[in-house]
């Protein structure tokens, strides 16, 4: 599974549900922002960015046909492609086609939820549900292309799939937390966070209460944009305020480290000038600097991890936060991209097949479900070659609201996996 890398393409179609008029087409090959890592498959392949009009028409047609018969067509598979359809508010239909290795319905369904969330975030629900002028809507949707492309392409983050916020653990969290709360109050908002390359370092209580998908999408958006000193973007919160716009303010304290605020009409961006920032944040310069390398590492320097661990995903399903890193023993095979790919596939597998539904997906809490005797609390998998003793090990462990997934080197003895995972989860528990 997964080790074929990220060959294959994801195509996304967006149509007005009632008329079938295409609103836009994006693909992981075409519209990828230039500043993202350039994969071998992205360097100017002459493939069509979109799909032929006839294909779009039939894909939509077959979905509409079902709908008229009150049949919900949700997914289909061909030899090399998986297709998922989803309608939102009877107004927008999204169709995704993926020929990526190891793709799954779960991944694509969640992708569509995030894509629709991204559209609401930047255009507002009103425009998407009361389509009065298709041409104007098409124009407005262009503002969401950057964010949507970053959801279709490769990312170091995993929140698009887990629907949990990608976080990092700073060495001096409480100091930063205090400064953040003070600054938020001075700026006149409750919603503030510090974000390092798309991952939340610390956030105010109100920020943590932001619902899904905005809690995932806001840091994701910030992490996917080219560097800017400051931004003042109108945003609609798909869960919390889908029709009334708020403002997302971002201030780059240090390159890669951004202070994010969600607020109403005040304060104006000009009020958050360098003098004000210096007053609050200059004393925090060292703790702030210590956050910079945390992006891909997620854990503080020197955090003891077993040397067999090549990648780690820790989820807190109630807080809806996660820690994701493929940095440990970075000099060894497989490459970071491969590790991410393997862990993503493994997450999909255990979530779709082995583990109980996550809270929010179903009513009951993960905790209750995990206590039922027939529900597995751990599972493992050997990936890669079929020769004994050579594949990478994957192990997943569920304990209360926490779920830990580890990617381990082929040398790691299979009989020790459970113990290693348990000890690692124990060590990580104070962090998330």
């Amino acid at each position, binding site marked *: 599974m997964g080790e074929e890398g990220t060959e294959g393409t994801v195509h996304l179609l967006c149509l007005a549900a009632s008329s079938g008029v295409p609103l836009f087409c994006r693909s992981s090959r075409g519209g990828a922002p230039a500043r993202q890592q350039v994969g071998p498959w992205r360097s100017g392949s002459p493939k069509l960015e979109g799909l032929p009009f006839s294909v779009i028409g039939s894909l939509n047609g077959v979905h509409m046909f079902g709908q008229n018969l009150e049949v919900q067509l949700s997914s289909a598979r061909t030899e090399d492609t998986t297709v998922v359809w989803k309608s939102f508010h009877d107004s927008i239909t999204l169709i995704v086609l993926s020929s990526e290795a190891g793709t799954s319905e779960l991944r694509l369904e969640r992708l569509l939820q995030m894509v629709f969330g991204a559209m609401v975030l930047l255009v507002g629900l009103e425009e998407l549900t009361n389509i009065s002028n298709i041409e104007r809507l098409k124009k407005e949707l262009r*503002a969401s292309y950057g964010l949507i492309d970053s959801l279709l392409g490769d990312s170091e983050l995993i929140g698009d799939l887990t629907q949990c916020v990608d976080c990092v653990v700073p060495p001096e969290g409480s100091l930063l937390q205090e400064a953040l709360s003070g600054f938020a109050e001075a700026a006149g908002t409750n919603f503030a966070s510090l974000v390092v390359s798309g991952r939340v370092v610390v956030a105010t209580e109100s920020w943590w209460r932001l619902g899904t998908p905005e809690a995932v999408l806001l840091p994701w958006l910030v992490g996917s944009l080219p560097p800017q000193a400051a931004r003042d973007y109108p945003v609609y919160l798909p869960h919390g305020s889908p029709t009334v716009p708020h403002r997302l303010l971002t201030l780059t304290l240090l*390159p890669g480290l951004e202070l994010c605020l969600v607020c109403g*009409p005040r304060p104006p961006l000009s009020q958050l000038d360098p003098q004000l920032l210096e007053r609050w944040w200059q004393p925090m310069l060292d703790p702030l600097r210590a956050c910079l390398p945390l992006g891909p590492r997620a854990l503080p320097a020197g955090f003891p991890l077993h040397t067999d661990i090549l990648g780690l995903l820790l989820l807190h399903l109630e807080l809806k936060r996660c820690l994701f890193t493929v940095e440990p023993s970075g000099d060894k095979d497989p490459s970071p991209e491969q590790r991410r790919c393997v862990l993503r596939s493994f997450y999909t597998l255990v979530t779709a097949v082995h583990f109980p539904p996550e809270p929010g997906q179903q009513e009951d809490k993960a905790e209750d479900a995990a206590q039922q005797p027939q529900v597995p609390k751990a599972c493992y998998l050997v990936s890669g070659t079929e020769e004994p003793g050579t594949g990478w090990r994957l192990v997943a462990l569920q304990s209360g609201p926490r779920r830990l997934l580890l990617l381990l080197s082929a040398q790691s003895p299979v009989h020790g996996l459970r113990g290693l995972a348990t000890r690692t989860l124990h060590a990580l528990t104070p962090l998330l």
Partner: protein
Amino acid sequence: MVRAGWPRDILPSPCPIGCPAMARPPAPGSVIAPDWHESAEGKEYLACILRKNRRRVFGLLERPVLPPAVAIDTASYKIFVSGKSGVGKTALVAKLAGLEVPVVHHETIGIQTTVVFWPAKLQVSDRVVMFRFEFWDCGESALKKFDHMLPACKEKTDAFLFLFSFTDRASFEDLPGQLTRLAGEAPGVVRMVIGSKFDQYMHTDVPERDITAFRQAWELPLLRVKSVPGRRLADGRTLDGRAGLADVAHVLNSLAEQLWHQDQVAAGLLPNPPEDTPS
């Protein structure tokens, strides 16, 4: 400025000699030493905005550091970059900041600001000043949809950069209207016109004679830019910071020149240029 007190609404528009509240732009190279950044001294100063031959990106808590012996003053300015969608505002700002220019056009979601530091030498005093330009770039549809955006961009701005694209005639023809609308609103604010996509000159919709006529009518500084990726370092990926600076030095110097001059005029430190004084 002699005519500054005239009621603005009775002014004919477009006013043939530019905005009456404005001093004439200084002659190119008269305020800022144009090629100083290429001199040995200039190169030394440029080192503080570079790191390992790449442009340094500064967070809002940071600034270029010079040895204490050569500590210099910083002059900060806000510059609003204006022009219709797709003319190349975001690309220009990225180019000036030494960042990757966007290849695909993504509509800018709202307001975004970019800080560019630029050391330059004043002609009169031989003093070096660190210019800090804060560029305000806003997507056109956000400007139209949200009422607070345009006032936020214009508030206390020191300069307007009006962009048109050499490949889009409509964006050029739009200029007089924009300039006239602003003429009464923002006296004493530097205005500059920038023609983007000059690398596409073969496909231009705006011939040289139109540029000449525009210059004569408006007497505004007009620059041509190519916001295309510059030379890369030996790794083939990273942009070469010095080469990138050389590509945009004329724009940064010209901005510095206009802004410094305007400050001097506003502070009453310069006599009005003779052409502006009817006697």
